[in-house]
């Protein structure tokens, strides 16, 4: 597409608004803007989806149990509720994990549920929950058991936290903690991320004293090892001599979390889902955090160099340069080869709370233009940058999510960098405790649409005919019926990894396949194609 030759943005927005009942249309208009940085405009985000709109969004439980806690292998995650929630979040997110040994704990292939029945709704489910926790403990003797509340649990008033405390005290050797992540809280998965952050912070982080060895110790936050992304990054860190204390939460264990307070820097990948933990760890333990992105070859190099800059160690920097030098050129050469076929093609990304931003990097490297993008559960700061946080209206849905009051830990707090040092690093371009958001990285003409509806997505396709769309499973086959390939960026379409250098290469290859295939041209059968002139018969 080129926005200049096709339907102008305002007309598009007007057409969309008209299709809805008028109030709904007015509301949706506020969630659609053009990126144009010259004219700072506010995008409406993290607000309720209007009932009846076909939205991409899921629920708080999904954000908590599925996204944040799902990738940790040695916690027995019990869903307290009817069977469905546990069933649907069972192995469906493609979080990979590598237990240390064939005997090491790994419960990720299991689904645990209290399978509540009507009598528990009527008489309460606490007894059943206690019994279920006891049975899980007797069967597996895990290090940790987590309890996730589904919608009815909050409504009938089961106190999962009291039950967890009681069982923890009873066992003595098993950490038991609960999450009030009922699906109806908040407006999307985002509330669930926040709840997950709070409880991991309260119940796990800082509970193990043993400090991991290593000179340059970091945590990686908001990386969930979909399709093996975390493995790529782990490998890279190792090559550079960076010690990864814990990932939150790809390929992680509960002990990794427990020791995370020993790190000297928190690297934040998915800002939306994990910034709470970064902030709380800074306050309590003095660990500064920095926004990074390992999606895209250049972005990966940049992220590593920022880590080098942060620690300010020449040997580390040299090692990073050596790793980057080998991999970056090689990856960029491959991108150049693919770019011959992808240059000028267009993409739209409607996904997640950071991927719609991060993946634009990869498309840039392929010479492709992102003409529209938006998050499913992002907030304004994910679009406009953290500077807008003080201006964000706190509505009832946000107020319902607990904000932990965190204080400096008298024993464990350790200042890693002085204010002045951090300021100096910021001046060098490190996003210390900061995130500039998606919009500044976008083409000024591009559309930014929050919580895109299915109707809007199909209208975007109709008017702007992108070569590729990135979204999720619910959109995939509808889009592809139109003859446009869709790349799932939640679960990577059963592919990946796409992080770091090796991942970037995989992604280039994948996009080359998707936008280059002639399969899509076979839709019209020969008998419906225009008649070709008959060959002239030679007499």
């Amino acid at each position: 597409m080129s926005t200049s030759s096709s339907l102008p943005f305002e007309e598009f927005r007007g057409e969309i608004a008209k299709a809805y009942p008028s109030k709904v249309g007015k509301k949706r208009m506020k969630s659609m803007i053009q990126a144009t940085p010259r004219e700072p405009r506010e995008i409406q985000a993290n607000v309720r989806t209007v009932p009846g709109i076909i939205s991409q969004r899921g629920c708080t439980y999904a954000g908590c149990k599925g996204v944040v806690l799902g990738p940790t292998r040695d916690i027995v995650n019990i869903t307290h509720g009817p069977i469905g929630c546990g069933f649907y979040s069972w192995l469906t997110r493609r979080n990979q994990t590598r237990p240390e040994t064939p005997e090491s704990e790994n419960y990720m292939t299991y689904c645990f549920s209290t399978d509540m029945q009507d009598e528990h709704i009527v008489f309460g489910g606490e007894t059943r929950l206690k019994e279920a926790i006891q049975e899980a403990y007797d069967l597996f003797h895990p290090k940790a058991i987590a309890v996730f509340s589904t919608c009815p649990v909050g409504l009938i008033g089961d106190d999962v936290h009291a039950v967890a405390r009681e069982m923890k005290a009873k066992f003595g050797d098993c950490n038991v903690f609960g999450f009030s992540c009922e699906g109806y809280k908040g407006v999307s998965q985002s509330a669930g991320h926040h709840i997950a952050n709070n409880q991991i912070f309260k119940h796990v982080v800082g509970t193990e004293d043993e400090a991991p060895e290593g000179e340059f110790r970091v945590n990686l936050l908001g990386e969930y090892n979909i399709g093996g992304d975390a493995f790529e990054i782990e490998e890279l860190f190792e090559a550079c001599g960076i010690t990864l204390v814990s990932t939150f939460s790809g390929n992680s264990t509960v002990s990794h979390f427990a020791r995370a307070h020993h790190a000297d820097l928190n690297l934040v990948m998915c800002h939306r889902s994990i910034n709470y933990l970064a902030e709380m760890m800074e306050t309590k333990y003095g660990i500064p955090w920095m926004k990074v992105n390992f999606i895209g070859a250049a972005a990966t190099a940049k992220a590593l160099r920022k880590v080098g800059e942060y620690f300010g160690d020449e040997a580390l920097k040299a090692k990073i340069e050596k790793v980057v030098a080998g991999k970056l050129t090689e990856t960029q050469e491959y991108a150049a080869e693919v770019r011959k076929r992808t240059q000028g093609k267009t993409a739209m990304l409607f996904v997640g709370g950071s991927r719609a931003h991060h993946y634009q990097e990869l498309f840039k490297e392929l010479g492709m233009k992102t003409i529209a993008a938006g998050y499913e559960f992002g907030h304004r700061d994910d679009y406009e940058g953290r500077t807008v946080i003080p201006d964000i209206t706190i509505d009832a849905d946000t107020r319902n999510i607990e904000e932990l009051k965190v204080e400096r830990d008298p024993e464990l707090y350790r200042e890693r960098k002085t204010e002045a040092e951090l300021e100096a690093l910021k001046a060098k371009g490190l996003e210390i405790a900061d995130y500039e958001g998606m919009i500044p990285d976008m083409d000024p003409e591009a559309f930014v649409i929050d919580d895109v509806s299915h109707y809007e997505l199909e209208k975007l396709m109709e008017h702007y005919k992108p070569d590729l769309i990135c979204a999720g499973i619910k959109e995939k086959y509808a889009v592809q019926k139109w003859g446009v390939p869709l790349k799932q960026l939640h679960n990577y379409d059963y592919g990946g990894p796409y992080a770091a250098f090796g991942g970037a290469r995989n992604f280039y290859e994948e996009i080359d396949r998707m936008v280059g295939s002639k399969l899509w041209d076979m839709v019209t059968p020969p008998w419906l194609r225009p008649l070709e002139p008959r060959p002239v018969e030679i007499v």
Partner: protein
Amino acid sequence: MLLRHTSTDVAERNALTVNPAKTCQPIGAMYAALGIHGCLPHSHGSQGCCSYHRSTLTRHYKEPVMAATSSFTEGASVFGGQANLLKAIETIFSVYKPEVIAVHSTCLSETIGDDLNQIVQKARDDGKVPEGKKVIFASTPSYVGSHVTGYANMVQGIIRGLVERHAEPTGKLNIIPGWCEPADMAEIKRIALAMGADVTMFPDTSNVMNAPMTGKHEFYPRGGATLEELSRAGDAAYTIGLGKFTAGPGAEMMDKNFSTPHSLQDLPYGLAATDRYIMALKRVTGGDVPEELNTERGRLLDMMTDMHQYLHGKRVAIFGDPDLLVPLTEFLRDLDMRPVQVISGTPGKAFAKRMKELFEGRNAQVNIKNGQGADMFLLHQWMKNEPVDLLIGNSYGKYIARDEDTSFLRMGFPILDRVGHSYFPYVGYTGAMRLLEKMLGLFMDRQDRDAPEERFELAM
């Protein structure tokens, strides 16, 4: 090992379900509603329910699954979901313009006591339902029954909301297929048409959940029972329900509400169940069984007898839904295979009773368990204690199959890692041949893999 914590010691569990062999009601309701032409399913609950159901159905069918949600927030959960549903109905008719909205409840809306009947009536009274458009509903609390129950409940919702009785009988035959694949529904209909019946089938997900690629996304695909057909279904001469759990309550309701006599059969998986289906059709149509069906039956039996040596005595573990398990187990039994372990998470005494009847008077040791405590963890433990040659069930079975090095046939819901189930039927005689082909392929591939070199066979 993928399921490394599953031990051989079977301990009594009262409260903890591990690796369920069922899921919740609303997804069944959503699937049934997709079998109505021009219908948009609507989930009255929080967004996650709708998102999970759409995702699971989409992964199973590799097809768009359009459905809307009441998007409950904390406020709605406290004050009731009426405002949300009214808003949803208005928005849906304005943007997505369906012929009918099929609302199902969730554990959330049921727990707070939302009355769908009252809210839908209010929507009509408030003029939010345009002329000629319909809103139907079914109560599907997730804490009762399973996905199987949800399907049955939406079938009844369809009957209550869309089926009418007029003065003039149509002489038609209603077929209510239980939960099966779109290809199975098409095959069920083909057989009925071959028998000379004039059929109204509902739900009918064929040409909905296996729609062609045409360069255009049909928001409401071509298939599905139409409102017009449904409105006359009460004037039909007869109703055949296929599957006690998923179609039974609907077939009975047709009888009760419209005095259409009904017969309840198993879903026609395997030879004997297909025979019974055809006999039921014959009783309605009175006509002869056409040559094409006789030939198909003969071919199936030919394959069964020819390949008997590879099937005889093979031990099989199965998990899934009652309406599949009953006729499937019967077919395996008739092939002289040994279905030895059967699990369904779906509760209901009728299931265990039917299963026991299948083995009455036969010297067969079969472990059967359904409902509370019947999960895949238990099945896996049984398999560890008494190994089987074949495991049949949905995609989650692949973890057990890999750990135990057991042949694995995917049947049931959901199948997330293979294609074909939506396109090629397992019901009817030809469907049974496909099932045989699949099983034989698994046994023979294994024989080829494991045979010592000197016993490696060219012809089998």
